[in-house]
């Protein structure tokens, strides 16, 4: 028994259809054949599956790692799929989306719950990221202040150390203190410059 699917012309049409290279006449002939024998569409699908299967032989490339998270984030943030109801338009308008969204809200509370959780998780993640960024900025500011305070503390310690050395020197009996007074004739009427010089005989 000869089936149409075994016919060379028919399989040629199917192959051409799957490849997208049918002429208008060939397409008309194929439609006619399929209308007469709807079960032949199985063969048409088989040809397309063969083509698709060929994709496994293509050089494979890994999508960037961020793509998955980005896609899932958008999926969670968007509304969930509605129940399978065909629509006339392939490009739904915003009002279509609104109607479908409302229908979805009424009928699929479980879906909404799971999606809400996911969306909530995404929102929480975003909030956490915002908080983290703020905290990072605060930490950076605190680190700056801490560094400035550390420098100031180092200077104070240095001064204190110098003062301590002076006190030690003054406490020693052999230390001699010489008062120096400025004698610049051009500084008439002003307080003369003064300084103290500590000296020890052995140093």
């Amino acid at each position, binding site marked *: 028994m000869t089936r149409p699917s075994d016919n060379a012309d028919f399989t040629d049409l199917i*192959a051409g259809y799957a490849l997208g290279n049918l002429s208008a006449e060939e397409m008309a002939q194929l439609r006619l054949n399929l209308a007469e024998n709807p079960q032949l569409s199985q063969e048409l699908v088989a040809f397309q599956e063969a083509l698709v299967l060929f*994709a496994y032989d*293509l050089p494979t*490339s890994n999508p960037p790692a961020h793509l998955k998270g980005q896609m899932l984030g958008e999926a969670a943030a*968007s509304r969930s799929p509605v129940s399978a109801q065909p629509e006339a338009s392939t490009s739904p308008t915003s009002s279509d989306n609104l109607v479908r969204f409302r229908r979805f809200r009424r009928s699929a509370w479980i879906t909404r719950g*799971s999606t809400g959780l996911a969306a909530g998780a995404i929102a929480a993640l975003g909030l956490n990221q915002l908080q983290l960024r703020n905290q990072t900025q605060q930490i950076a500011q605190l680190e700056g202040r801490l560094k400035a305070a550390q420098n100031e503390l180092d200077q104070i310690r240095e001064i204190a150390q110098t003062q301590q050395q002076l006190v030690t020197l003054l406490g020693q009996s052999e230390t001699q203190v010489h008062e120096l007074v400025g004698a610049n004739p051009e500084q008439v009427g002003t307080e003369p410059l003064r300084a103290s010089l500590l000296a020890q005989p052995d140093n």
Partner: protein
Amino acid sequence: MDSVPSASSALSETSSDQDLFAAIQLGQVTALDLLYERYGRLVYSVALRVINDAQEAEDITQDTFLRLWQRSEIYQPHRGSLYCFLIMLARARAIDRLRSRQSHFRNIQQWQLSYEQAATLPSPLESATLKERSHHLREALKQLSKAEREVIETAYYGGLSQSEIARQTGLPLGTVKSRSRQALKKLRTALKSVL
């Protein structure tokens, strides 16, 4: 096959495509995650092969999965395998980026016709793993010459129209068509036991 998992069904890497799809219809993000893990690389590779632009391939990949997520009714499980649908959709969208809107419409119509008219029984490959599918394909491809494989790849995944291929190869348009059809028929015959 026709069983639909409840919202609380546990999904895993071993869940069937149909179970994942049913869960996607119920709005389970986990199912979309698993489906992406399973086919994301393949879809991206096809898009990249057609359009030859990494950023565009990313957009197409994301768009393909989100399309299924947001409008799951466009895929009907009893009319073909899910991976076939995803790849055809990704390819059509990639072609769309390459060509005019009119051409895109033709490509979209092409796969829509198949799913509208076809009412197929699931093929053995539908329940096969990726590894098994790759194995079947490798075995089938052994029966095709290198030239035949190239003509299929160029004709379907090259992102060129038949006329463009004819101009590029210097072959008559009729020859380009007949060669690609012959190669595909040979591939289909080689896969007869699984498709």
